[in-house]
């Protein structure tokens, strides 16, 4: 198999050039999708038969939780690429994604607590789903802290990659916690194999919100990665020509 395309993909200059063209599209599409989904979900969908209006936090809680887990999976993939192929761009991606993932994780935990108080009767419970999500937040914080604690770039890259890979074992635990244990958190509403257990007029804005959050994540990630590329490649000729 020919791997040259893969190494070309890993070239910081190539990525910097091509990602500049994506930015306007990402900005417009993420803004439009999130606006449409949230206005639709928060103002125009019918209330739930049991929870009334408090269920509407789902339009933020579910996309944020999806992203918190998806970003970690992307970080673990970047970690494997860093360790095996030693591609610098993968390590830069790992670095810039960690704070974004941590933010989604905090948003997920906070909205969950706000919803849990009226619905369950408590802000927090040491339930398998909630606890494994809190561990995910600690993993994110750990990876950010580890990067800050090691001064040489190569050593930090290796340490963070290993920690990210070790932590990926938590992702299936989060996903299946509601099936494996008797948790207070309900089971999945959106399933890959079955029909979602949600009325279609509530489902559509939710799916739009998830897509919008993904695009927003991509936008923030690309913006941060471009800055990281410029700062790490500042001694190369193309960056010097670009800024002068």
């Amino acid at each position, binding site marked *: 198999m020919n791997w040259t395309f893969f190494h070309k993909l890993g070239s910081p200059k190539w990525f910097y050039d091509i990602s500049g063209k994506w930015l306007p599209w990402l900005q417009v599409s993420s803004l439009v999708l999130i606006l449409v989904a949230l206005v639709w979900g928060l103002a125009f969908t019918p209330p739930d038969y049991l929870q009334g209006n408090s269920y509407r936090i789902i339009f933020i809680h579910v996309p944020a939780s999806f992203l918190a887990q998806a970003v970690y999976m992307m970080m673990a993939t970047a970690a494997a690429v860093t*360790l*095996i192929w030693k591609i610098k761009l993968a390590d830069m991606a790992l670095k810039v994604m960690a704070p974004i993932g941590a933010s989604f994780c905090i948003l997920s935990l906070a909205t969950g607590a706000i919803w849990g108080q009226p619905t*369950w009767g408590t802000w927090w419970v040491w339930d398998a789903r909630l606890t494994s999500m809190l561990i995910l937040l600690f993993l994110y914080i750990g990876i950010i802290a580890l990067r800050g604690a090691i001064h040489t770039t190569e050593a930090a890259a290796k340490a963070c990659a290993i920690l990210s890979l070790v932590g990926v*074992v938590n992702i299936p635990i989060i996903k299946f916690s509601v099936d494996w244990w008797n948790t207070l958190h309900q089971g999945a509403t959106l399933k890959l194999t079955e029909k979602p257990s949600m009325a279609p007029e509530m489902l559509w804005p939710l799916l739009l919100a998830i897509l919008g959050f993904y695009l927003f994540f991509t936008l923030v990630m690309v913006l941060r990665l471009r800055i990281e590329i410029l700062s790490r490649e500042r001694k190369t000729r193309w960056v010097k020509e670009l800024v002068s």
Partner: protein
Amino acid sequence: MNAVRKQRLILVLLLLAGVGLAVALMLFALRENINHYFSPAQMAAGEAPVGQRMRGGGLVVPGSVERDTESLKVSFRISDGAGEVTVRYEGILPDLFVEGSGVVALGKLSNDGVFEASEVLAKHDENYMPPEVQKAIDDAHPKSGYSKPAAQTTAQSELRSLQDGS
């Protein structure tokens, strides 16, 4: 892929497998402690330890809720279809505490077989629908007494057949 990279790929896979195995063994060894949960059937059959803090959960049996007029004391029965147990609790119940819907209670089993709860939480299911849809379902299936509409669980249908039999 050259030999060095292949070797590193194998190392990464071994790392993942090793960590996965370690965590799986740990969770398997701790499975009793992670979730100290007993079903109403286990409590009724005397399989649950008396006087030990644990979690119990089930559906609130319709018509079983008795509130004390003087205090916040409340008692109700929970069922999983296979057995029932009485729960005693003093405090404010969550808004979504409805007869026929699920609850999770934290507390101790007393000597007379009553579950003394120190905390009662309402368990919500994964179904979301507008009130009109729920009304349509209620009209189609008159008064089951249970609030959970779609996809009636086996526990509920079993419980209903139990009640019909008595």
